[in-house]
């Protein structure tokens, strides 16, 4: 390379580096552009009249979509998330449990029956619904009864490790980077034994290396290292503890402490972030309060999840609306613990209920690694499993409404 080539390369690089990552404006809506931008567009456009008429709206949609996608996919914690609904940044794969039994559907989204049968995990592409693989999880022997209420699946934030529970057993499903099944293995017997009496949901750490669950009778939360079987525990007495979510933020788990015994001066429920990086102890000592006040407008608090910035909770509610006909309602709402107020209702659906007190399943099932893509269920209300897309549920592509659903991503 000649001297002038070397110098040219050096000078151009130096000139280009004046544009630093933090100094560049994000993509923006054209209408918000400055006049220089408008002049540029006017002068450069050589479009047909129809295209010219459509261009602003189309460009606006395009830029909004791109901005939402980039925010979802690329922003670290601490930034306020974009609204759930863009397909950008959603986990690549989702896994459903398909249960085949000779049985019936006692309730929306529930299959109950007896063997012979089988529970199979099916992996699909989240965007296209393309079938990527399936694997037998457990055979149900002849005559053995099983309800899908007793099966569950949960995903690690890395979208590659899934924990699957069937009565009496827990399996770890691992995927390769292309979504193909890498293998299924049962948990060591000691871990399964420790999990007896645990309460769903069981959580996987973001990297899929640890499991967290609660022991209801002992009122404690346990974290198991899958590779070694080592167990760490956090006691919660006098409260009842429930692990809710293991956000993609390392060692912190969102838990709920329920004051079912009516401890004086304590709220009915406390949402806390528990640091499980240590060796164990008491949940109050190793956690910080996120939110402690129940809603006062008749909501029943359930299935909260936390966004990556730790400021917002998505809460799924089921409420009665009384009047003439008994109905139930499902709402997924965004709530700010900091401001202590409801920000917006993300999803709302109503369903008539034939039995007083009966709630069709509804809630946030799983959260994408970014925390911004919600997989929610609304059996009894609408389509079943779906991605929260704007204010409605978009059914997961490829998902079959076969009444034996469990899904995670």
């Amino acid at each position, binding site marked *: 390379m000649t001297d002038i*080539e070397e110098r*040219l390369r050096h000078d151009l690089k130096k000139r280009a580096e004046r544009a630093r990552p933090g100094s560049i404006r994000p993509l923006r809506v054209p209408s918000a552009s400055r006049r220089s931008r408008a002049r540029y567009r006017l002068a450069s456009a050589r479009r047909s009249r129809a295209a010219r008429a459509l261009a602003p709206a189309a460009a606006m949609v395009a830029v909004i979509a791109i901005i939402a*996608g980039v925010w979802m996919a690329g922003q670290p914690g601490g930034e306020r998330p974009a609204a759930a609904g863009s397909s950008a940044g959603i986990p690549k794969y989702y896994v459903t449990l398909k249960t085949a039994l000779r049985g019936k559907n006692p309730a929306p989204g529930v299959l109950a029956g007896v063997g012979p049968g089988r529970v199979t995990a099916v992996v699909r592409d989240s965007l296209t619904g393309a079938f990527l693989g399936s694997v037998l999880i457990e055979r149900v022997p002849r005559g053995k009864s099983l309800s899908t209420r007793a099966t569950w699946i949960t995903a690690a934030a890395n979208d590659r490790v899934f924990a699957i529970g069937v009565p009496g057993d827990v399996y770890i499903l691992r995927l390769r980077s292309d979504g193909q099944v890498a293998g299924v293995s049962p948990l060591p017997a000691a871990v399964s034994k420790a999990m007896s009496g645990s309460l769903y949901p069981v959580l996987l750490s973001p990297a899929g290396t640890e499991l967290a669950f609660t022991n209801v009778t002992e009122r404690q939360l346990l974290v198991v290292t899958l590779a070694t079987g080592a167990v760490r525990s956090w006691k919660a007495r006098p409260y009842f503890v429930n692990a809710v979510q293991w956000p993609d933020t390392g060692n912190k788990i969102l838990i709920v402490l329920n004051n079912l015994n009516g401890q004086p001066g304590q709220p009915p429920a406390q949402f806390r972030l528990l640091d499980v990086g240590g060796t164990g102890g008491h949940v109050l000592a190793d956690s910080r309060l996120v939110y402690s006040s129940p809603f006062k407008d008749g909501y029943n608090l359930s299935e909260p999840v936390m966004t990556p910035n730790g400021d917002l909770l998505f809460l799924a509610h089921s409420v009665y609306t009384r009047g003439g006909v008994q109905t139930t309602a499902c709402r997924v709402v965004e709530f700010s613990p900091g401001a202590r107020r409801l920000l917006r209702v993300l999803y709302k659906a109503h369903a008539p209920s034939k039995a007083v007190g009966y709630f069709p399943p509804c809630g946030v099932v799983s959260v994408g690694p970014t925390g911004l893509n919600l997989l929610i269920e609304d059996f009894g209300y609408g389509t079943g499993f779906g991605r929260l897309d704007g204010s409605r549920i978009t059914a997961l592509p490829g998902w079959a409404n076969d009444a034996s659903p469990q899904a995670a991503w």
Partner: protein
Amino acid sequence: MNTSAAGLSHPKEEARHATVAVTDLFREHHLELVRLALVMVGDQETAEDVVQDAFERLYLGWNRLREPSNALVYARSSVINGCRSVMRRSAVARKHAPKLAVTSGTGAAGTGSADDDHADLADALQLLPRRQREVLVLRYYADLDVAEVAATLRIAPSAVRSTCTRGLAALARVLGEDRG
């Protein structure tokens, strides 16, 4: 009913793919493309405008791409085209601008940073014909090989080689004259 549902889902899928693909491209190459435009037009705000326009066009025309895997090449071409438009217009604007007295040191050469001893080479590039400038920037800033430059500018590889040689020679002459 099923047919209708299938018909509706197809464009949605396409839109999703376009969003994901353009988002990925944006995330990985936005800075690189802004810097490419900056080197071409010399002004960061204009460079950002050019890149924004390129991404808009890419998104809107995603379904018409013959080879989506070559999206970066399309985006780069689009940025280069945008830069051409900007420079063409600024040339016209300069031509018709009122002649004002220019204080010494505030001209085009003054846009280089004070701490940059070699800023004259990047400035000198602006004096070259458009094609030579584009080839040199893509070759020596973007580090593209001859075939990639040819694909981006949609010219023959032999034209890239000859233009590059002529551009370097012209650059040397410009520098020589300036120093002389």
